[in-house]
């Protein structure tokens, strides 16, 4: 399975940040050892500019943000993945700013048009196929409620893709357990992978 880890951690030497980075490194290594193809993208190393809310990606250059930075390549990686893991250390009890900047920049994945899904208004799909979405959260000094609130954000995000959060992990959980959950997804997504290959030609 192709897995993209979109890592919203910072270049910090704080104990929490080091612990978080080490966990993600172990996670990527273990997934590779189990046969997954893993791309670990550290957002802090990219030129990633914030969304300006101009709506160009909906109404002027459909599907594309007019900003010339690294987000186009991240979007390509996103769409060719079977599973995208948003990884973030909690900041003030929520996602990091880097992670939030990226989430905002993924809005061209939708069409501007509104549809009803499970009784709620959401944007219509632009693409025929999306990866499953998961999150890996590092609690640091924050508490269980902060983890729950941050997970809820990713649940909302997954819902907007007419899906459910496929992996909801925190760095409190042993790496092997998270990988077991991902292996389980691989079995579930065999049909989806065939469909993906058909779409990709």
């Amino acid at each position, binding site marked *: 399975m192709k897995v993209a880890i979109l890592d919203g951690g910072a270049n910090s030497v704080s104990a929490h940040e080091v612990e978080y980075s080490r966990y993600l490194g172990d996670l990527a290594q273990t997934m590779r050892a189990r046969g997954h193809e893993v791309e670990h993208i550290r957002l802090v190393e990219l030129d990633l500019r914030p*969304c300006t809310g101009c709506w160009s990606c909906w109404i002027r250059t459909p599907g594309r943000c007019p900003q010339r930075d690294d987000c186009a390549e991240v979007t390509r990686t996103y769409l060719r993945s079977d599973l995208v893991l948003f990884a973030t250390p909690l*900041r003030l009890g929520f996602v990091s700013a880097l992670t939030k*900047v990226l989430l*905002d920049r993924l809005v061209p994945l939708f069409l501007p048009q509104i549809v009803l899904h499970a009784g*709620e*208004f959401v944007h219509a799909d632009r693409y025929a196929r999306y990866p499953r979405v998961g999150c890996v959260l590092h609690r640091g000094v924050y508490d269980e409620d902060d983890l729950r609130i941050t997970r809820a954000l990713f649940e909302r995000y997954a819902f907007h893709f007419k899906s459910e959060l496929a992996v909801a992990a925190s760095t409190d959980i042993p790496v092997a357990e998270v990988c077991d959950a991902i292996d389980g997804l691989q079995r579930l997504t065999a049909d989806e992978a065939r469909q993906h290959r058909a779409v990709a030609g």
Partner: protein
Amino acid sequence: MEVHYLNSDRRRRAAAEAFGRSEAVLLAFPLYMHAMPGIVMTWLELLEPLDPSRQVRMGCIVQGGLPEARQSSAVAAFLGRLPGRLGCVPAGTVVRGGVEAMRFAPAFMFRRLRRHFTTLGRQLGTAGRFDDATIAAVAGHETMPAWRRGLFRILEVAGLSDRYWVTTLRENHALEHCFDRPYAPGSASPTGPGPG
């Protein structure tokens, strides 16, 4: 009263300094992907917590584009805890969906909402916090009632639900590219308008 915009590094630094010397703070933003825009979170990460003995009030306003208040549920829960994290006294969180329609709907449709916001401002200025009843009145629906969903279905079938978008795309000469998938796996380089 000072109004600060957070759309550049310089402005975010200025606003962070203003936060440190304020007696009350009102944080307002549109909903981007179910939470605050990235620039707002970038600003929040700059802030140093205040001395709680200063009793600085902090209120928040979230403006959603889609109509249901539920769209903002995660960030509303975060904002409920944020003032305490920053050494402030919570003044309340106001969430309102469906505000995007203000740009094209007749003014009378939003007259009552504007009155509510005036009331909220008065409450923050006099009592130092938003009144729960006004917050509830502004919030509207947590989820859309069945009749609103039914009405949408009718508009959808009639081809009217996306009229605003079709018109805007046509005005921008982008309608034929509306359904482009520039980053689909295996697709060629984008050919539509704009950057690659």
